[in-house]
């Protein structure tokens, strides 16, 4: 006990500095977590969160009996993996290459332009996509026809969509994401570079020996954060780009769009809480494993 008090005293200042954030998290995150019990309840307005009757595991039934649980979970994870890998590679490359340039204006302008897609909402992206890919008047098809090729019916063929969705995802997040890596590079001590220069390393060696290793902590944290959401699909993106076009669903349906379609007419609080909980638990397990692996490699890089 005494030991604990001494420890408490030693960390007093730190605890005081943490206090506002802890209070915030308790009030706005932990307290509302009580809502998780809805996953096991037959919610009614009169009963509310605690007063409604227990419903066992019935709220989970529709999802697991659908025969689609495996497919949509698999789609969710694979899409997220593809997005994580492609995004990380593109964003890091952009940041590293931009930093190496001397021209101030090119750097600034290129960065600003890359940020533009972030502001274009998925609803509008879907309009742009339709203008590109439509069978009747899309300019991709007009181009193909003018080059003497056959039209491609993108909206009636699921096999193109993993590529299409990945491209749009990379496009939308390249500016936003590369800023994080730029900031990481900017935090590298110049002296490390000077030392490399004295060693006679060429630019490519310098990038691989200094820049990338120095960016690693940021990269690992961002990876872990993405892995923490690996069972959650980007609803806005999938819903707007694919929508109710069922022909594409085998290739594009993720957990979130599936649940949305299933519950849109009867808006069942319990069932949506159940699917949410399922996703949370899987994410939790995945991130625990990933974090453990990182921790074994270097504790400084891990989330907790």
């Amino acid at each position, binding site marked *: 006990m005494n030991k604990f008090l001494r420890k408490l005293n030693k960390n007093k200042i730190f605890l005081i*500095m943490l206090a506002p954030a802890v209070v915030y998290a308790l009030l706005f995150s932990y307290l509302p977590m009580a*809502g998780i019990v809805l996953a096991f309840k037959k919610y009614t307005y009169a009963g509310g969160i605690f007063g409604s009757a227990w419903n066992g595991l019935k709220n989970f039934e529709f999802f697991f009996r659908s025969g689609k649980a495996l497919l949509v979970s698999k789609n969710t994870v694979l899409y997220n993996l593809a997005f994580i890998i492609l995004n990380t590679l593109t964003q890091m490359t952009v940041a590293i290459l931009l930093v*190496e340039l001397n021209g101030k204006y090119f750097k600034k302008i290129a960065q600003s332009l890359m940020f533009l897609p972030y502001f274009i909402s998925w609803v509008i992206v879907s309009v742009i996509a339709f203008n590109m890919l439509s069978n009747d008047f899309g300019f991709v098809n007009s181009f193909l026809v003018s080059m003497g090729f056959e039209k491609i019916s993108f909206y009636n063929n699921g096999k193109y969509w993993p590529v299409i969705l990945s491209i749009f995802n990379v496009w939308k997040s390249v500016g936003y994401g590369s800023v994080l890596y730029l900031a990481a590079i900017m935090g590298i001590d*110049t002296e490390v570079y000077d030392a490399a220069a004295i060693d006679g390393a060429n630019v490519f060696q310098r990038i691989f020996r200094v820049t990338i290793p120095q960016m690693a902590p*940021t990269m690992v944290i961002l990876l872990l954060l993405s892995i923490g959401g690996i069972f959650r699909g980007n609803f806005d993106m999938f819903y707007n780009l694919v929508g109710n076009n069922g022909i594409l669903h085998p290739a594009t349906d993720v957990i979130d769009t599936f649940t949305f379609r299933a519950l849109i007419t009867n808006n069942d609080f319990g069932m949506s809480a159940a699917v949410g909980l399922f996703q949370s638990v899987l994410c939790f397990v995945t991130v625990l494993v990933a974090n453990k692996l990182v921790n074994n490699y270097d504790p400084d890089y891990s989330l907790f």
Partner: protein
Amino acid sequence: MNDQTRTGGISNGLDAKVLHAISYVFNGAIALVCLIPFVMVVSASFSSEDAISKTGFGLLPKDFSLEAYSTVFAEPMIIVRAYAVTVLLTLCGTLIALFLQTMTAYVLSRKDFAWRNGFSFFFYFTTLFNGGLVPYYLLMTQYLHLKNNYLALLLPLLFSVYNLLIMKSYIMAIPDSLIYAAKIDGCGEMRTLFSVVFPMLKPALATVGLFIALAYWNDWYSAMLYISNDKMYPLQYFLYNKVNNIEAYKKILESHAGSGVAAAINMPTQTLKMALTVVVTGPIILLYPLVQKYYVQGITIGAVKG
């Protein structure tokens, strides 16, 4: 500091020239791909609704028209007020949130803080599990009574665990020796944070600050839930409401067999959406170069040490 910070001043060899060429081509291509759709959005916003629906988008406005903008700015006073609310909210929110998140991240990054992993987990856990909208809404309206209160717009975005952990990773890149040196000089933790850590963190603060500002700037959801007084609407919510009302109304007309519902109003929807994007994007685009200078020139630890 100058632009050669990152290259150590030796970038004149063939290797550097090759790299520059790659960089210009690669980044130039990506920037172009990002620009074109935006140009299409801008030109669509200056087109007539009719032309857009007939022939789709182009790089230049079709049948030039200001219809969409005149719909957006139909009530200029409301827009001005909404802008003011959003700007103030973004300003306050960003400063408070940035301070809160950096202070927390600093503590979690300190290796001599005994419970840093425990607390990191405590915060991270909240990103995995949440209780849904109902309990949160009850908390905000029935217990905190924040309906039609600006705090309802400020609080939800005040603390982001993602930003916290990203900030933590940036702080951990600062050599421990610097912090211990400050301690030996007799600095308290707060003093160390302000006089040693903050100056070193400029690019990180700019980045996370930008993200927080964007989150406040783009947030319409909190306003939808908690603000019903139209004098208090922030910009995004005002515009969101405007466009989506017309859209949703047309959808209901379509699904609703009864002719009792008044016939559709003839208002621009596509071009209005585009104009809205331009209106909300503009100011942030102007602000961005201010933030950018921290990405173009970094900091030198040696300089801080000296």
